[in-house]
């Protein structure tokens, strides 16, 4: 079939769902974006190196700065970390793969295509208002260029990628650990990823809502961010509610990595590992209540700003504990300064500087001088580059032997460290001294006196950037010609080092067990190193033979491409004419994407693909909860935040509006009442369908599903008539004011969820007719029910909020 079109090697990389290969794909792609974003930065630094320079004009400069930020944060830092997570975490917890391998591959392809989209945006004029995309300058009125729409499409795609990954890793870490691999026995890296996932799950929906509302503003002329009632502060809140956890999201995996690298090279156990993990959890939770420190000078009032000062300063406490504990690991140790150790320790040192300067910015009083200056730029680059990137590079050197089976050149790596570390400080430390200089200006005059420090910083930039050439040369050459490394060149303790390097396709011959005394037991009951984790030949015990061809699926990449086309089509339409107020969608691409999407959904569901489920696993605390159900509840959690933010935006603009239509003036309460009853009934029929499935009544199941579908359709019908009537009656369309805007968008989003649910009923009906879901196989009906009842719950809130108050 399609498998024959591509040669085996290409096919393998395009269709793989193996966690190791997906991990390598993430790593290579992230490094590619790192180079791209780094080149953008070097151009920016060149422009800034002397006063009154004109290497880049203002427009190009703003685009370069914006895309540099977007690429680094979304397309480099997290994917780099998750490349490691994909490859290493199943190995460290003793699992065979992630919980949902095809979903995993799909996450990668969504990520890749979203990266294509953001690079493509340069064609149309890339986004140029900073990665923070403040309102109202991002509204159509001030930025008609469609490059911003393309950027928004890219961001939506990568958010989808991340949400899929979050659900996947969560279920994997909670439910697929090897026997004896209790949560407290896990190394710090999986813990860090787990904590990161939680933050992603609850932060990204806010971002999705924000980008969606921005897109709708630009495409349909709504007023969320272009009005005074919403505008700058609405975006500020919604964006930074996501934005602050996001910067911890890009940091924590590196911290977890460093916490595992240091004990290996210090030859002693990690000091206070449970306090480190506890601190990570605390910091993650606190990260959700500090976002106001990005809004210190917006005028939100002293009560709020003082509160945020306290929470932001408080969040440095868990980081104190983490840093001190990692340093205390070195006490009475035997420190081997290999490249990974150098980068890990260097990262801690730079992170300390970044963290201390963060405390400066946490003070609302100091922020009144430092806001929007290069002090801020220096602070976050010390954390993100000094802490995160250096930590991730440590991981690269650490795990390179495991991925390739070869050792890199230690001397070149040490030089790489030295030059990077020095170059880094020459690049960024002067920026602290430039605390008077505004951010995001493409030039400045000589009389400001900012020239010398800028020149110094640019020099540092080229040194730091140039040093990375050593990294790539070292790794590429060593991959071909480095000496064999053996399975455990660092004499480390985590499970991935018990496997050969590079790790064979099937990972473990037999899943290891951790005994009560903490020792590993492999297969024949013996412990390492007497027992072996890998039999010399490729024959495998347990009958779990596994070749590359097994586990391949074309649907992840096809589905991702479909989504890419769809969202691209939504974003590249030209402004409407004659008076531009919004954009026309580009229907050909949208249609292509939609059709391809439907085809791939169909193919995905019909494909015979089994995930690997071991019978004996550690799964506290979700012992009795099946994988898919846990996945669905997790996803619903993200949906709660998503709708929460949409409803929050409605509250925000409404509170800020002097007048609002009275109850019953705009919307017919009877309509709302009817719709609520219809939807409640549809939940009842869904329950009845499930009950029928459980007792084996096929007709009952069909009836229940049909009824649910019908009621869903009635709901949509009533809503459609209502919308049409509102549209024809007054000047009541999407573009005619905030009451209209918030109503249409919020209930519209809900309506899309109803449509999705109805599609699910169609799918389930088709399968029921084929004989499935009766008796023991009822789970799909149950899962549909979970989703459908959630949609019902959302409406239960929307009814009073829009119709009754």
């Amino acid at each position, binding site marked *: 079939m399609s498998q024959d079109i591509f040669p085996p090697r290409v096919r393998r990389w395009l269709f793989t769902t193996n966690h190791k290969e997906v991990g390598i794909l993430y790593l290579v792609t992230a490094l590619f974006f790192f180079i791209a974003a780094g080149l953008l930065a070097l151009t920016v630094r060149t422009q800034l190196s002397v006063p009154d320079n004109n290497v880049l004009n203002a427009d190009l400069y703003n685009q370069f700065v914006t895309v540099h930020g977007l690429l680094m944060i979304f397309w480099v830092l997290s994917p780099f970390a998750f490349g490691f997570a994909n490859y290493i975490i199943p190995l460290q917890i003793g699992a065979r793969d992630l919980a949902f391998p095809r979903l995993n591959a799909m996450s990668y392809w969504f990520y890749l295509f979203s990266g294509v989209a953001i690079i493509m945006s340069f064609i149309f004029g890339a986004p140029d208002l900073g990665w923070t995309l403040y309102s109202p300058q991002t509204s159509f009125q001030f930025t008609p260029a469609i490059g911003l729409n393309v950027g928004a499409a890219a961001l939506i795609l990568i958010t989808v990628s991340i949400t899929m990954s979050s659900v996947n890793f969560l279920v994997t870490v909670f439910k697929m650990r090897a026997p004896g691999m209790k949560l407290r026995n896990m190394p710090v890296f999986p813990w860090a990823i787990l904590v990161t996932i939680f933050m992603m799950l*609850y932060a990204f929906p806010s971002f999705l809502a924000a980008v969606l509302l921005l897109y709708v503003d630009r495409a349909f002329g709504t007023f969320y961010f272009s009005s005074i009632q919403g505008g700058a502060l609405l975006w500020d*809140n919604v964006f930074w*509610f996501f934005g602050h956890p996001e910067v911890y999201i890009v940091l924590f995996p590196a911290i977890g990595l460093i916490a595992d690298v240091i004990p290996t090279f210090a030859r002693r156990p990690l000091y206070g590992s449970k306090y480190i993990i506890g601190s990570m959890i605390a910091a993650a*939770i606190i990260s*959700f*209540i500090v976002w*106001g420190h990005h809004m210190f000078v917006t*005028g*939100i*009032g002293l*009560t*709020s700003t003082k*509160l945020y000062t306290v929470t932001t300063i408080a969040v440095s406490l868990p980081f104190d504990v983490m840093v001190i504990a990692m340093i205390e690991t070195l006490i009475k140790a035997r420190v081997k300064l290999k490249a990974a150790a150098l980068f890990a320790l260097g990262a801690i040192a730079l992170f300390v500087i970044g963290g201390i300067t963060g405390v400066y910015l946490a003070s609302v009083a100091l922020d009144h001088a430092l806001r929007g200056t290069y002090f801020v730029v220096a602070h976050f680059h010390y954390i993100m580059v000094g802490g995160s990137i250096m930590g991730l590079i440590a991981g690269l050197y650490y795990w390179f032997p495991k991925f390739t089976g070869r050792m890199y050149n230690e001397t070149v790596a040490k030089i790489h460290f030295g030059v990077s570390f020095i170059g880094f400080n020459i690049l960024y430390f002067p920026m602290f001294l430039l605390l008077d200089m505004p951010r995001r200006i493409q030039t400045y005059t000589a009389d400001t006196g900012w020239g010398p420090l800028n020149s110094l910083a640019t020099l540092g930039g080229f040194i730091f950037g140039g040093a990375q050439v050593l990294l790539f040369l070292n790794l590429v050459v060593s991959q071909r010609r480095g000496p064999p490394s053996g399975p455990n060149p660092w004499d480390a303790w985590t499970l991935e080092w018990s496997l050969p390097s590079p790790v064979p396709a099937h990972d473990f011959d037999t899943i290891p067990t951790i005994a009560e005394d903490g020792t590993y037991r492999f297969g024949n009951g013996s412990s390492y190193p007497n027992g072996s984790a890998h039999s010399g030949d490729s024959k495998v015990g347990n009958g779990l033979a596994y070749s590359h061809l097994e586990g391949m699926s074309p649907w992840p990449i096809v589905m991702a491409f479909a989504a890419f086309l769809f969202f691209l089509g939504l974003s590249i339409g030209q402004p409407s004419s004659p008076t531009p107020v919004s954009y026309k969608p580009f229907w050909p691409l949208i249609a292509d994407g939609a059709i391809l999407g439907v085809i791939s959904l169909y193919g995905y569901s019909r494909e015979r693909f089994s995930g690997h489920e071991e019978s004996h696993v550690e799964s506290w*605390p*979700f*012992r*009795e*909860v099946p994988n898919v*159900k*846990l996945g669905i*509840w997790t996803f619903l*959690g993200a949906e*709660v*935040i998503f709708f*929460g933010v949409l409803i*929050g935006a409605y*509250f*925000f603009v409404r*509170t*800020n509006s002097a007048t609002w239509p009275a*109850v*019953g003036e705009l919307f017919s*309460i*009877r309509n709302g*009442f009817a719709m*609520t*009853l219809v939807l*409640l*009934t549809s*939940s*009842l029929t*869904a*329950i009845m369908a499930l009950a029928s499935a459980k007792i084996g009544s096929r007709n009952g199941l069909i009836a229940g599903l049909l009824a649910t579908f019908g009621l869903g359709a009635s709901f949509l019908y009533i809503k459609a008539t209502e919308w049409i009537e509102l549209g024809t009656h007054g000047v009541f369309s999407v573009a005619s004011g905030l009451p209209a805007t918030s109503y249409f968008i919020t209930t519209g989003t809900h309506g899309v969820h109803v449509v999705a649910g109805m599609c699910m009923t169609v799918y389930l009906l088709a399968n029921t007719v084929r004989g499935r879901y009766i008796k023991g196989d009822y789970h799909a009906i*149950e899962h549909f*029910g*979970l989703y459908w*009842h*959630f949609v*019902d*719950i959302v409406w*239960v*809130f929307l*009814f*009073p*909020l829009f*119709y*009754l*108050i």
Partner: protein
Amino acid sequence: MFAILVGGTDIEFNLATLQATIPYNYYVSILLGLAGMKAILIAMFYQHLKYEPRSLSSWVIIGLVIASLLMSLSFLQLHGH
């Protein structure tokens, strides 16, 4: 269960027609309280949370508690200046 939900909705509907006679704050609170109650009932019974293992329901409850804390923080900001 269904009857309770429909009944609750009916109360909301009637409350709306009486809206002029009730102080606005109480009106909104009652409505939101009713909505919340309906949501909890749907979650517990339709989505089966009452019968699921503790771990799952705690998961959900913790998430909701955190979400409400966040909403309160935002309200503080809205009415704080």
